[in-house]
Structure formats: C-alpha cells, structure tokens
C-alpha cells in the first residue's frame, strides 16, 4: 500500500497514546492541522516536544492530550505568554523539561545523527543546567576543560509540514527551515503533510532543495493550509490577527474549550476548517507570487 493516505488515517496509525511527538517548525510550517487531528482522535499522555510550543501545543494541552512538554521558549511568538501551557505548569498539572534553543536543537541533532551526545560551548548560565539533569559535562581531551553536552532526543513520531512532496515523501522545503530535517531524522516515525503533492520530476528538478528523503517517511498526507494560523512561505501569510486573538481566548479556559469545540471538534478536517474561516480570511492571507531565479543543473 502507498504512503499517501489521509491525515486521519496517518494519525490513527502512527500516533499512539504515550508517544513523544515532535511537531516541527520554527514559527513557519507549524502543522496545526495535525495537532487538531490528534485532538480529535483524543490521544492522551503525549510528551509534546518542540523548541517553541506555539499555539498548537497550547491547544493540545487545553484538550488534555499532554502529560509533559519539552521546550526552549514557551511563548506566543511576537505576542507574549503561552497562557494555557503556562497555567498548567504553574498549577503543577503538566510536567516539563526545559532547554535553551541551542541545547534543544543540539539534542535533536544528536538524535538525528545517531550520536550519543552533542557538545556545546559554555554559557555559564548555570541555573538551568542545575535544574535539568540532562545537561552533563565531559572533559575536553585536548585542553582538560569542561564541555557541556546534551543527550539525543529521539521522538517516537515527527510531524513535518512542507511546501511540496512527491507521493513517496521526498520533500522540498524553503523559507525558514527551522528543525524540520533534524526532527524527521531523529524520530522513529515520520508523518509528512504537504501543501502540494507533485510529480517526482518536480522534486528531481532541484535535488538540493530536498531536505527530507522519502525513505524515512511513513505517511504522506495532502493537507493544503495545514499551517494556519502559522503560515507556509509562498502559499499563505501568517495570521497575526489570530495570534493576537488567541492571547484573549486563552485567558479563559471556557473560551479556549469553546474554540476547540467549534474549530477542532466542530469540523471534520482541515478542508472544512479552511472553508469555515471564510473568504475574507482567505483574502487577507493570500500572497502574491515572488519566484526564485531558477538554477541550471545541466543535462549530463
């Protein structure tokens, strides 16, 4: 059977209760549609790992999917606090494990490259290193100094949204590429969603653009507008208005629940969600073309 399946099927098959999930994307390409599907399928006891939890983890925590978050910046990017994750942490209802951006991404890189740890230069900000026992040190065999290291992060499942992929999951990504590649390689399973499923020839016309090879991908899902309210470079804009609106919604658990009822449980899938947003939002998020200058690979 092919890898190209519906998102509902991909989540049913590859996301299990208790999994460590890494939904990748630094502001860009955040796979909201997959988070919503996980909420709809009522997964429980997930460990949600992500450098920047963003709204998608706020929503998953509000829906009761999570027992733990692993993060390095727990905010609503450009707006402020991530209220629901924060409230759950402050109330002692949610476990957490915390890093700096670089140590978080170093963990993922160690996982993606099969290394036992990644070294980092010292930052001297000892409080976090003391609070989180995953930070260790080794002795530099060249100088005798102490070197901070972090262990690999190997999620059970990575969720990666991309601009275009072929049916096998060979994926072109551009714009902010964050930790998409590292998350995919670090994880045991990979769910890939794409704005467009394209013929392999399109992928093969620009192999340097392929950050994720199909053979590490388990499921390929065609999910246009997957990232909203985040964005997909070249496809639609970031819905900054919603990021500001969520700051209001998330002040009140009831309102957040009502949001989930309406926008997650109340729709069948991303297509229904997108239609429900309506033409005015579609227009507001529409983007004019700005094409890259092609490069010549040559016919050899």
């Amino acid at each position, binding site marked *: 059977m092919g890898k190209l399946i519906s998102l509902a099927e991909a989540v049913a098959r590859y996301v299990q209760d208790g999994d460590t999930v890494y939904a990748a994307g*630094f*502001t*860009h390409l955040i796979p909201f549609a997959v988070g919503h599907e996980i909420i709809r399928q009522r997964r429980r006891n997930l460990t949600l790992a992500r*450098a*920047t939890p963003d709204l998608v983890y706020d929503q998953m925590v509000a829906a009761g999917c999570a027992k733990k978050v692993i*993060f*390095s*910046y*727990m*905010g609503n*990017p*450009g*707006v402020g*606090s*991530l209220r629901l994750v*924060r409230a759950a*942490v*402050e109330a*002692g209802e949610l476990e957490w494990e*915390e*890093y*700096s*951006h*670089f*140590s978080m*991404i*170093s963990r*993922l*890189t160690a996982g993606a490259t099969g290394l036992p740890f990644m070294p*980092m*230069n*010292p*930052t*001297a*900000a*000892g*409080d*976090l290193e003391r*609070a989180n026992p995953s930070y260790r040190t080794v002795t530099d065999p060249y100088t005798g*100094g102490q070197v901070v290291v972090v262990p690999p992060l190997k999620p059970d499942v990575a969720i990666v949204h991309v601009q275009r992929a072929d049916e096998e999951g060979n994926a072109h990504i*551009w*714009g*902010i*590429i*964050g*930790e998409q*590649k*590292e998350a995919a390689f670090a994880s045991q399973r990979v769910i890939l969603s794409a704005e467009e499923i394209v013929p392999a020839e399109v992928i093969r016309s620009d192999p340097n653009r392929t950050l994720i090879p199909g053979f590490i991908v388990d499921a390929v899902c065609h999910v246009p507008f997957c990232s909203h309210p985040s*964005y997909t*470079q070249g496809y639609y*804009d*970031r819905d*900054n208005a919603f*990021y500001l609106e969520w700051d209001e919604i998330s002040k009140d658990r009831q309102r957040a629940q009502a949001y989930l009822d309406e926008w997650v449980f109340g729709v069948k899938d991303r297509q229904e969600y997108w239609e429900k947003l309506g033409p005015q939002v579609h227009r507001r998020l529409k*983007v004019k073309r*700005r094409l890259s200058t092609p490069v010549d690979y040559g016919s050899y």
Partner: protein
Amino acid sequence: MATLSYTSPELLTINAARLLRDGDVVFVGVGLPNLACNLARRTHAPNLVMIYEAGVIGAQPARLPLSIGDPTLVSGALSVCSMYDIFAFYLQRGNVDVGFLGGAQIDRFGNINATVIGGYAHPKVRLPGSGGSMEIAAWADRCYIITPHQKRRFPEKVDFCTSAGFMSGRAEREAARLRGAGPQAVVTDLGILEPDASGELVLTALHPGATLEQAQTNTGWALKAAPELKTTPPPSAEELRILREELDPDKIYLKGGE
C-alpha cells in the same frame, strides 16, 4: 530651538540604535531591537547585517514583522539556514557582533532572568524561558538590553539566571571563558547603564530631563552614577521621522510611553 516631543519607546529605540556600529552583525529580536537596527541602517550604519534566530541573514522586511519568524523576513533575505546552523555556524562560531536581550529581571551584574519568578520547581510566575538568550548572552561579542526602568525589573539579584551577565562580578565571567564580552549597555527610558570595572551596572548617562534620583528610586540596588555622568543627545528630528514615517507608521511598537 523647539524641543521635540517623543514617546518612551521612541527614546529607547533611538538610543539603542546609536550603540550599533557600521558593519556590525546583529542578532535581532522583534519589537524595539528590530526598529533600532533598521533605524541604525538608515542613519549611521548602512552596512549592518541583521540575523534572526529563525535562521534569516540579511533580511529586508517590507513590513514590520510581528514575530521573529515572519515571512517578510525571508522574502528578499540574503540567506536562510536551519536553526542549528544559525546558532552553531553563526553565533557559537563567533560571527555575531551584537545581541539584543530582554527579560523580566536584570540584576546588578547584568544577569538576566527570563525563566521564572519564584522557585523553579514551583514557580510563582512561569516566564517563556531562554529561547536563544542563554547563548546570545554568552557568545555575541557585545550585548545590549532595552528595558523600561522599573524597580521590579532591576533586582539586586535575579531569581533565576537565564543568561549570564557578569555573574557575581567580571572575574567570574572571565573565569568561565565565555566567548562574548557580556552586556555592554542597558538602555532604559531614564538613561543608560554600563558595567564598571567590577562588572556592576552603573548609570553612565541620563536622557534629557531625567534625574539620577529617579533612576536610583527605580533600581533595586544602590545604583551608582559614573564619575562623568553624561546626558544623551535628544532624539533628532530625522531619527523621529524615520521611525514614525518609515519604520512603524502604524505605531505597533512605538505606542505607549508618555
């Protein structure tokens, strides 16, 4: 000469911009640091290179970005790389001259807390956490902090050290062999604080109209004034014009203040 009026965010931004040097490679945050960099580029530092922790180098944003990962930072940028690369090849390698930092607390020795108010395990207030600031504070050659001057923001000692300033004093930072030289200035709405020989932040300049007493009242330790306490030149008409007309015409970041 008529005195120009300006808001507190305008004053902060203009004074931060003046700290930048032409050719600096700057790790930029959104908000006021972003405005400060763009103002510097349009005035005395046309060759400033702006780097964002999202992996964008040499952005030319056509609009004001709300977040550090806004698509307008990408379209037309010089380069975009992965998050690992921006921290490893750029910041850790020593290719970043300036980093901007912020936090809920900045203490006497320039240490920053962006993690928790209260204890770590059972925080009274859970803040967003380090993000990139732990590494920026350690590895950028110079760091600048932009913050309103309020007593609760300037405690004697931070509840949690998210990012190292001079730690317990310059000697301790030097012993830690960090790549960067540490915080070089804190720009507030009252003036500018800079580290003295011991690494303690002292008031080195007041903005026009502000007083030493005001600064001391709004600081959580016994704030010293530098022997030669300067007054910053007031925002110029040109600086204000660029900010208001070109950079933030909708006053997204420049609203508020007096």
